[in-house]
Structure formats: C-alpha cells, structure tokens
C-alpha cells in the first residue's frame, strides 16, 4: 500500500459521503414553493431559505441607481414580495422561473442571491417577426 494515495483516497471517500448524506440531503429540497412557506411560515423565519417560483407579471421594480430590485414571486397560489440588491441576471423578466436565496423578514423575503431557472427547450426567435418601430424604441430606452 502506498500510504500517500491511500490517504487521498480516504479523503475523497469522506468528501463523497459528506456530499451524499449532508449536501444531497439538503439539495433534494432545493427550493421551497411560496405555498409551502404559507403552510408553515414559522418554520422558515430567520433561516436561510431558497424560494422558487415565477416572477409575477408586472411586479418588477428595479432602481438602476441604488440597485434595489423588488418583485413578487408566485407559484400561482401564494404571492410573496421579494427584495433583492443587485442587477438581475439577463434572463430575469416577467413570468420567468427564479430561485431566490435569502431570509424571511416578516412577510417580505430578503434575497441575497438570485438564480434563473430556464427551460430545456431551445428555439430560434420567430422568423419574420420584425420589431415595430415603437418596440425598437422601447428596447433602446430599456438598454440605457
């Protein structure tokens, strides 16, 4: 037996065991749905939680100067207001699947990490769907 490699092997086995029991156990329930939170709000108070759901249409407020982002996350049943500081990822938009990491402070969820859940389906933009002039103007204004 070559001791050096045996030690390395045992370290790796310990890491796998840790990931399998500790890490995987936690990541099996990777996120909590808003309605699951509503069933038992006490359970999640003051604890780090990942909240998963859709961005409610028309609920996004972003201040580019202070980087304050506010939106409502919903699973179609329960709606929870979310506050997050930071520029949202590029794919962040209405009705997008998102996972927010953070803590509940009363009824409001304070996120410190915002993740996008995109679909497994890929397709090019609609052929021939040319943007109308006012849509182009809107895009340009949003890009500022």
């Amino acid at each position: 037996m070559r001791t050096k490699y045996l030690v390395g092997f045992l370290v790796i086995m310990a890491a796998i065991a840790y990931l399998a029991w500790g890490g995987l156990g936690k990541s099996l329930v990777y996120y909590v749905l808003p309605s699951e939170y509503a069933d038992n709000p006490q359970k999640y108070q003051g604890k780090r939680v990942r909240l998963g759901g859709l961005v409610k249409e028309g609920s996004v407020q972003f201040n580019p100067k202070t980087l304050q982002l506010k939106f409502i996350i919903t699973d179609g049943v329960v709606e929870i207001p979310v506050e997050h500081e930071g520029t949202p990822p590029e794919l962040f938009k209405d009705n997008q699947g998102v996972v927010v990491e953070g803590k509940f402070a009363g009824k409001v969820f304070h996120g410190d990490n915002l993740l996008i859940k995109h679909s497994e389906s890929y397709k090019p933009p609609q052929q021939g769907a040319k943007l109308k002039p006012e849509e182009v103007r809107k895009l340009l204004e949003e890009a500022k």
Partner: protein
Amino acid sequence: MGNSKRKLTDSLSSFLLLVGFLVFLIGQYLAFKAPPDVQQGYLVRILYVHVGAAWTAYLAFIVAAVYAILYLWKQNPSYDRLSAASAEIGLLFMALTLFGGMMWARPTWGVYWTWEPKLTTSAILTAFYVGYFLLRQAIEDPEFRAKAAAAAAILGVVNIPINYMSVYWWRSIHQTATFDIVNRKLHMDPSMVLPMLIDLAAINILFVAFLRMKGAIAARAAAREEIYD
C-alpha cells in the same frame, strides 16, 4: 526487440483521431451558423459541446465498467488497462462538462455553481472517479489493484442513472434533458439538432480514438515495468 521502431499509435487510431477532429470542426461550423435561442441568444451555443461532453463521459464510465466485468471474468490484464483508460477519458470529459456547465451557468442562471441535485450528483460522480485513480495508485500488487479497481468501476456506474434522473426526481435549477429519453421528446428546434448530433458523434469518435491510444500506451508501460522488475 524490434518494438522500439513501432509507432506510438496504430493507423486506425490515427485515422479515428483525424476523422473525429474533422467531424468536430464541421459540427462547430454548423453550431456557429445555427440561430440564437429566443431566450438566451448566443449563449445557447455552449449546449452543442456540453451535451456531447456529458454523454461521452457517461459512455466512458459505462465502457470502463464493461471492461471491468470482462477483466473479472477473463483475468486478462489488457481489460484492466482499457478499463482504467476509459475511466480516465471519462474523467477528462466530466471535467470539461463541469467547466463548460459553469461557463454556461454564470450568464444564464446567474451563478457558477449552486448545490442543487444535478450539480451535487455531478460533483459526487467526478469525485468518485478521482477516488478510483487514487485507489489504483494506492495498491501496488497489480492483480489486487486490478480487482479492486474493477469493483470500483462497476460500482461507479450507479452514479450515472442517478445523475441523469436527478432533474426528474428532485427540484432543481438545472433544466431537464433536451434529449429527453424519459418522455421520448426532443426539445429543440430542427435547425439546432444537426450541429448538436454532429458534435456528439465527433466527441464519441474521439473517445474511441483516445481509448485505443491510451490502451496502447498503458500496454507498453506495463511491458516496460515487467522488463525492469
């Protein structure tokens, strides 16, 4: 001792290496001509190599287990060498899968890494095969080493269905498979399918070429060890 003049690779391996490389170039050319995705734009292009790398990593670990079974059955050391060679290539493609996945995750999901089921099981899968090579290094007796490694290689394939199914079994941020075997669906526009299939084929051809070459190198190393022992 005419062996010293023998070429490092046989002509079939060199041919496969060349074909694999050329097919990969064609695939990449088509991938760069393929339309952007409606959601993520040109970022979708990472998919063309990410899927191929991940599938070939799975394949390599399965091949490693098949050679491990053959070794335990026939006790031929060359099966042990091929099993180790396949596992090594699998680990390489797994590393590429993780690297490409992280490069893709940062601009789309917003983070390089998160401990969600697909990524956690991928980390376990990768760590398992790192452990496999440490185990091989730890054992000096060739026969005991081959047997222990064979057991590990067979055990290792258990990771693959868990890793593949993780997105269906548990809540995750990783999207479900685009080549959806579970629901027998292909969630992709036809204009994007061809480059992905060509890249997948190329990486598979490269895998066969690498496996033949790595197996040949391992055979020479073993022959040399016997001379000096």
